[in-house]
């Protein structure tokens, strides 16, 4: 009877998870604090960048993406690439034409 155990166990020590959580809470605080500052058009960019940093932590550490096979990382990249390209193409319409 075989089990597929060719991958190493996907786990961290408990403390790593706590540290990640701490980082996430800190970044949340940062987002809230930064919201008060007026960056003009850049505000949304700053907010998104911090959100991306938080997502990165959740993806790689909580969801173990770092420990998974390469295929999974390619998948995530493809999905995000599609969203980015769609966003860009959508905005070739909206940013160049005022309705």
């Amino acid at each position, binding site marked *: 009877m075989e089990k597929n155990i060719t991958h190493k166990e996907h786990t961290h020590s408990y403390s790593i998870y706590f540290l990640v959580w701490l980082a996430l809470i800190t970044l949340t605080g940062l987002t809230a604090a930064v*919201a008060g500052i007026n960056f003009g058009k850049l505000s949304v960019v700053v*907010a998104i960048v911090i959100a991306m940093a938080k*997502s990165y932590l*959740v993806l790689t550490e*909580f969801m173990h993406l770092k420990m*998974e096979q390469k295929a999974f990382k390619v998948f995530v990249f493809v999905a995000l690439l599609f*969203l980015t390209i769609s966003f860009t193409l959508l*905005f070739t319409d909206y940013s160049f034409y005022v309705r």
Partner: protein
Amino acid sequence: MSTQEHVEEHVHRDDIRSRMGMWLFLFSELLLFGGLFLIYSVYRFMHPHAFSIASKEMNTFFGTMNTIILLTSSLTMALAIAAIQRGKKILSICLQITTILFGAAFMVNKFLEWSAEFREGNFPGSAVLQSKPQGQILYFGLYYSMVGLHGIHVLVGMTVIAFMLRFTIKGVINKDNYVKLEAAGLYWHLVDIIWIFLFPLFYLIT
């Protein structure tokens, strides 16, 4: 017609297959919300001022609290998996229960928040809302749609984890076979990630 004895063949268990299936499903969920995020980005681009004004009506305290609740629930979920990997069944059960409770707290908060909004007349189709400038109507339309859809996913996630809890108690999920719990965890983390984006985009517009 002869009856064939169906031999229960031992199928090689492939945990990577199970996780891959869940990741692919997560992509479809990501794109589901992604479509709404695209719509949001267009309308915010077209009505920056109206979005900013409408955002002031949001209760930032509730929003921040909910963000912390969900992030912590992600922690407890990850710990629940780590616990069962180490054979700590009781600990895993407690952590799964905690995760579900955090989800419930999130939903209660949401309910209180939305009740407050409804009392002020800010609900879809209301006269108050329809008298506002179009940019603000769009903001609230997106707010209720996106946060509402997210809430449905929180409830689904809680249900899934409840099933996993039952499996863990019964020993179906155990030290040597926990891929179901991992899959449930993946789903829950995605729900968390979506909120990570929803929070600043709706509650923290300057």
